[in-house]
């Protein structure tokens, strides 16, 4: 056995493929230089983009924004995309039947993951469309009797924007505040429900801080008061066990590209017993039970189905691996630095999401220094504006701490070495910034920053 290990190590050290890749890389450099590419210049294999020089492709720690497609999912997609190109809604020939079969198989795979029946899954173009359809569709259908929507302040932008749209149409919306650990206060929810409440929308796993809401209890409250419960489970499916019957969910939005599937596909679970009714957002030929007209994108739907099945098989294994990495990251950073705060509850949290705030450090400069680690501060949806994330503000985090928050996203493909490197880079950058910071010096001397009287000029 030992000789086999030695021989395989030697073979690996001498293995060709790495050499082959770098040989091809040199050829492409020459070709690109000949084409006079002005946007990126590279010497010594480093990249200059947007005024920053980085020595290579950064390590990817932003799994909440999106995930790379798993090769097994990619394989399933290509398999069908090449041959089964018919329109699944054509009922008259083999191409249509084959494509329809493929879509039905994917439907069963998605339904099994969440504990639903395949007839309750509607494929859409993503979780954003599913959220829009759920929130606006339900309220428009019941607009004569139900005028009130309850949601939280930490929801995804698309839910909040849909609620704002409903407000402009004349509905009333209650935005529930959250406690400092990010969880919804169940008593407040109970008090907020009125006889004319048409929908409660609370996301299962938050995309910025990663906290898991108490779904079973919320489901019970909604059942008592007979209010439909909608949840945005884009970050939750395939990562934590989801059961629509146990959680008493009426509508659930799912997204393909958060579980190692393709971008541009998602699904909405619409409960049939007891039936919840919606007005469709996309009108047309009545496909997908009349709730989402339009040709189904067979290739992407198949990818989504394959990703769901894979997630169901690998959920336990991935969870163990990701939890270990999260502990490694947190302990590694905490060992070398003080003043590190985790945003959101540590107990009720999805292990792949770690949102840290570093005290006495300026946020923009921290991110500028961390260009070799692909992380995000706040969510991609709100990064166009300068203000700190509304989720952190809802948690009650101070402005300065909210600005220095970084969200590390750990996933199936992250390795221990990547985590160690991320820890090293983060610690180095924070230490460098703190050394330059006069505020930190004052804190070390024992002065309490909050009680300083800054002199006015």
């Amino acid at each position, binding site marked *: 056995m030992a000789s086999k290990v030695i021989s395989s190590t030697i073979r690996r050290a001498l293995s060709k493929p790495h050499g082959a890749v770098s040989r091809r890389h040199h050829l492409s450099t020459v070709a690109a230089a000949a084409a006079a590419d002005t946007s990126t210049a590279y010497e010594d294999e480093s990249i200059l983009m947007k005024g920053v020089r980085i020595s290579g492709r950064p390590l990817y720690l932003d799994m909440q924004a999106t995930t790379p497609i798993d090769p097994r999912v990619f394989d399933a997609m*290509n398999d069908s995309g090449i041959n089964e190109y018919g329109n699944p809604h054509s009922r008259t020939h083999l191409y249509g039947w084959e494509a329809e079969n493929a879509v039905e198989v994917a439907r069963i795979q998605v339904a099994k993951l969440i504990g639903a029946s395949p007839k309750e899954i509607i494929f859409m173009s993503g979780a954003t469309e599913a959220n829009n359809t759920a929130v606006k569709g339900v309220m428009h259908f019941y607009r004569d009797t139900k005028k009130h929507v309850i949601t939280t302040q930490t929801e995804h932008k698309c839910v909040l924007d849909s609620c704002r749209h409903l407000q402009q149409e004349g509905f009333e919306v209650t935005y529930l505040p959250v406690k400092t650990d990010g969880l919804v206060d169940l008593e407040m929810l109970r008090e907020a429900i009125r006889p004319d409440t048409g929908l409660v929308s609370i996301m299962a796993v938050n995309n910025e801080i990663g906290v898991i809401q108490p779904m079973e209890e919320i489901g019970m409250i909604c059942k008592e008061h007979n209010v439909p419960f909608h949840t945005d489970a884009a970050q939750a499916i395939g990562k934590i066990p989801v059961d629509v019957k146990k959680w008493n969910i009426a509508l659930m939005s799912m997204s393909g590209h958060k579980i190692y599937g393709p971008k541009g596909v998602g699904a909405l679970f619409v409960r049939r017993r007891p039936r919840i009714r919606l007005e469709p957002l996309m009108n047309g030929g009545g496909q997908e039970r009349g709730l989402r007209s339009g040709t189904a994108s067979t290739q992407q739907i198949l990818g989504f189905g394959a990703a769901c099945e894979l997630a169901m098989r690998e959920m336990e294994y991935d969870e163990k691996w990701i939890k270990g990495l999260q502990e490694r990251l947190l302990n590694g950073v905490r060992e070398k630095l003080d003043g590190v705060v985790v945003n959101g509850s540590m107990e009720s949290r999805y292990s792949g999401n770690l949102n840290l705030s570093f005290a006495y450090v300026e946020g923009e400069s921290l991110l500028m220094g961390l260009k070799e680690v692909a992380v995000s501060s706040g969510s991609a949806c709100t990064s166009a504006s300068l203000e700190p994330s509304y989720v952190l503000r809802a948690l009650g985090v101070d402005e300065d701490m909210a600005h220095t928050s970084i969200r590390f996203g750990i996933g199936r493909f992250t*390795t221990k070495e990547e985590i160690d490197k991320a820890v090293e880079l983060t610690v180095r950058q924070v230490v460098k910034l703190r050394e330059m910071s006069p505020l930190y010096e004052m804190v070390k001397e024992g002065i309490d920053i909050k009680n300083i009287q800054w002199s006015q000029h």
Partner: protein
Amino acid sequence: MGSRSELLSLCRALLRAGRQFPHYNLREYTKRRTMDGFRMNKNLTDQSKAYAEAKAQLVVVERSVKLYSLYPPPKTKNIM
């Protein structure tokens, strides 16, 4: 269907195929998943289903490696 040498050769084939991915993350993942997969199913009484699954995965890995290597790699290598 499960003699020691067949299992070993399947494991070795999976590892060898996984090493050819142009992507650092996929290389490491295939290695780890193969070793853990074989280790977890080591003590099963009926190994035929796990063996069949592993064989199917080998086909997928080999096909993916070929496809991923056909396209030109990104202009710079990963910093890992």
